[in-house]
């Protein structure tokens, strides 16, 4: 069997290729805007900061998100569920670099619930991958939505996490000027460290 190729850090200089190519005269093929004009579903902003073990903002992290559309369907050939339709205007992948204050945001739609292992349904969630200088391996986490009380309570992945750490994955809802935002900080290290998964 072939051996996996080892991971290395994304380093501090990825922006001109991965997140801000246009700024350097190139072309972006992913951005932090996932929802287009015709995309179905509730418009939301997902926002937060990446913080290090000293609680300081990480200004050179890259966050990627991967999510289902508003009815819980992934735009991928292996999601073949007939009862949840694809939305041609929604790919479900986003990428953002953090700013000088460690902040990131995505403009997207709220994902629908989807099936998990066995018969268990998964609560609406966004899959999150964290990369940064100083991280030799990327880290996987998830973002759930605070107002999905019932669905979150039944979610098998949340249930697998010690209760006192679940909150690190649950984004708080805020509404201002008719816009809905969910806020979640990613803490790389320490007492309130975000739950990272061995995917």
């Amino acid at each position, binding site marked *: *069997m*072939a*051996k*996996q*190729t*080892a*991971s*290395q*850090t*994304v380093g*501090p*200089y*990825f922006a*001109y*290729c*991965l997140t801000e190519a246009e700024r*350097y*005269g190139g072309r972006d*093929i992913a951005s932090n805007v996932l929802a287009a004009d015709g995309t179905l579903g509730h418009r939301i902003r997902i926002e937060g900061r990446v913080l*290090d*073990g000293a609680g300081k903002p990480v200004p050179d992290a890259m966050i990627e998100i*991967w999510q*289902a559309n508003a009815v819980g369907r*992934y*735009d*991928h050939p*292996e*999601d*073949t*569920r007939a009862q949840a339709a694809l939305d041609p205007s929604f*790919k*479900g*992948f986003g990428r953002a670099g953090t700013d000088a204050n460690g902040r990131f945001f995505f403009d997207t739609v709220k994902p629908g619930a*989807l*099936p*998990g*292992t*066995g018969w268990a349904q*998964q609560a609406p*969630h966004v899959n999150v991958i964290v*990369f*940064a200088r*100083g*991280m*030799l*391996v*990327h*880290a*996987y986490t*998830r973002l759930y939505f605070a107002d999905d009380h019932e669905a979150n309570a039944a979610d098998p*992945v949340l249930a*697998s996490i010690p209760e006192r750490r679940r909150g690190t994955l649950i984004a708080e809802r805020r509404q201002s000027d008719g816009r809905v935002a969910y806020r979640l900080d990613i803490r*790389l*290290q320490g007492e309130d*460290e975000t*739950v*990272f*998964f*061995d*995917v």
Partner: protein
Amino acid sequence: MPENRVPNPYRPRDWGVHPPYKYDAYGSTKLRAPSKPLVPLRQTLSEITGPVYGHDAVTPLDADLSVNARRNGEPLGERIIVFGRVIDEDDRPVRNSLVEVWQANAAGRYIHVVDQHDAPIDPNFTGAGRCLTDNDGRYRFVSVRPGEYPWRNHHNAWRPAHIHFSLFGASIATRLVTQMFFPGDPLLPLDPILNGVPDPDARQRLVARFSIDETKPEWALAYEFDIVLRGRHATPME
């Protein structure tokens, strides 16, 4: 596929190969390494899916870094060809999958605004490229050989020449960001980032092989760099 069945999961990340989060010789890991054990996660549709890019996402020019940022001439430096295959642990080609690369210029300077190394920017070189693997998992870039450059990790710290690679494979489980190095670089044994890889063989696999066969006479040296992503278990998970 029954509604309750998840397609075959991916094999786990090989922690004998990948670096740990915390690696003392690489100072920036100190405050950025998760300190609690990773929480096990049975793969679901969320993990075995991921973004899929079609051929409309890239143009042939994207794969030629020696041309794609020209303004008034050719970039300076030694032209190189970098090629290889992306396969999985079972030697299956990873087809039609996005490969992104970025690098310093021949003088060891990144175009990135944050890079303040006292070496010249090349007006005809950005150092970013992308392509899709073909049906055999093959990719190919043309570029210029990146220079070594200093960093502040420790006294007299220099990064060996390298090219950053970003790969998706078919799912977010196969996501990989890595770096390709050049054979014979005297800085390799001194690099805390490369040395973060615990297994010497796995470190060696991050070093490209010089290929005289793919070297183009009177034009450019060629370096071969194969990449192995996670494979899949043979049976579905109920």
